């Protein structure tokens, strides 16, 4: 991965260890690194809650030819473009993040509740999530906690 070349094309970005932090144009960046370098696997997408409805997404890419990892980080306001058409595995990751963080991926039509019941309110891994669903046994009103 040639950082200088990358920075020349996408100027709004910075390097933190082996993590590239970008502000926008996710699809452009992912398309660029897959087309110009050998990153052909998306190992996972890691989501982190940043508070105030913002979520950081870290795309962990891997090159099976050069055996190299690359992390691309972007912070979004609850909505971001899907890359499921570039990496099939993203479909699963995006669905999981939708279920637990409530981030909407435009272009991914498969988003649905995965682990949580279909009528569940809220997204459990957000920091502002309140556990008050009456279906949880410890929320049945009989105990104070």
């Amino acid at each position: 991965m040639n950082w200088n070349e990358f920075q020349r094309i996408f100027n709004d970005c910075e390097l933190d260890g082996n993590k590239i932090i970008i502000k926008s144009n996710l699809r452009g960046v992912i398309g660029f690194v897959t087309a110009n370098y050998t990153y052909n696997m998306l190992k996972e997408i890691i989501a982190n809650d940043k508070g105030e409805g913002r979520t950081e997404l870290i795309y962990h890419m891997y090159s099976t030819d050069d055996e190299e990892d690359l992390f691309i980080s972007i912070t979004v306001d609850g909505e971001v473009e899907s890359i499921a058409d570039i990496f099939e595995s993203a479909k699963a990751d995006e669905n999981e993040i939708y279920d637990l963080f409530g981030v909407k991926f435009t272009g991914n039509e498969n988003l649905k509740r995965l682990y949580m019941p279909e009528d569940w309110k809220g997204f459990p891994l957000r920091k502002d999530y309140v556990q008050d669903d009456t279906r949880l046994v410890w929320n049945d009103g009989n105990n104070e906690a």
Partner: protein
Amino acid sequence: MTATMKLKLNLGPQHPSTHGVLRLILELEGEKILSCEPDIGYLHRGMEKMAEKMSYIQYLPTVDRIDYLAGCFYSELLCRIVEQAFEVELPDKVRAIRVMLLELNRISSHLLWVGAFLMDLGAISPYFYAFREREMILRYFEKLTGQRMMYNYFVFGGVRKDIAYLEDVEEIISVLPDKINDYEKIITENPIFLKRTSGKGVLELDTAVNHAITGVNLRASGLNYDLRNIDYLYKGFDFGAVVLDGKDCWARYKARIMEMRESVNIIHQALEYLKSAPALEQKLINPLNLKLPEGDYYAEIEAPRGLASCFVRSLGDDRPYRLKWRTGSYYSVNLLRKLLVGEYLNDAIAIAGSLDIILPEVDK
């Protein structure tokens, strides 16, 4: 009735081959599968949410349950995160103990898979043979750790107590190669087994990479990607790569059989070292009031079902701000969407079984 009538079939929500609860919603035309939609979440325990409310030492015993057939690998990952944060270098003996137990765990996991997979295909006997050998390994773990499945034996900076009962391990690895030969005699060239598996569920390499498939399933499609080659824990161990080019269910079966032999080889080396090694000297990290310095931590390992990884973001508290697991099976389940299309219903069981999916790992 018209010939083109479509049928929706619920496969599950239960099936023995999946070692857990999985529901596949299949759309059929005759016996041909038109589409497949996996429905998961029946075993969701909120492992990631739990981590945010527990201190690291409280969380450690629970991570074995992410994959209860190969619990060691997940304890190892969490220990690795903490060791990374405090820059602890493991002594050689601890490395050898961990490698030996990880590989024993890998064999027991593959053995269960061999038995369950063959039972799915209608062969009952291999199940009992595989469980007979698995029992030897579980007995050893029970003797050593007090537990048959959730060992909780690795701790931050080392292992809970010194290794013991090495003669049991010696017996296991002296018996296993012959037993694996026996399996191969009754399974590998069996004409019924060949008809059910060879040429079925062909997973092309670029499809596998695009679906983030790792581990044995990827290596049976022809790519030598094994994290053990670069893992510091396995430094100094000599073992070969198991890479096959068959891409079908049969290749995935054969790769697991070969991998068990390779694991026996690794255990052999670890055992030779441990037999003459001095008493255990390790510097454990004090788990009380353990606070990880602020920052992101990442560790990955070659688990029996593909690459497993753990990501921790710490804000300097005694608990993680965010902890994420990556498990191999999660991607294998989603691969079924693609792999089952165009296959016949009776092959669906063979194909889903050959990927070695375990549901607690998928649902976390």
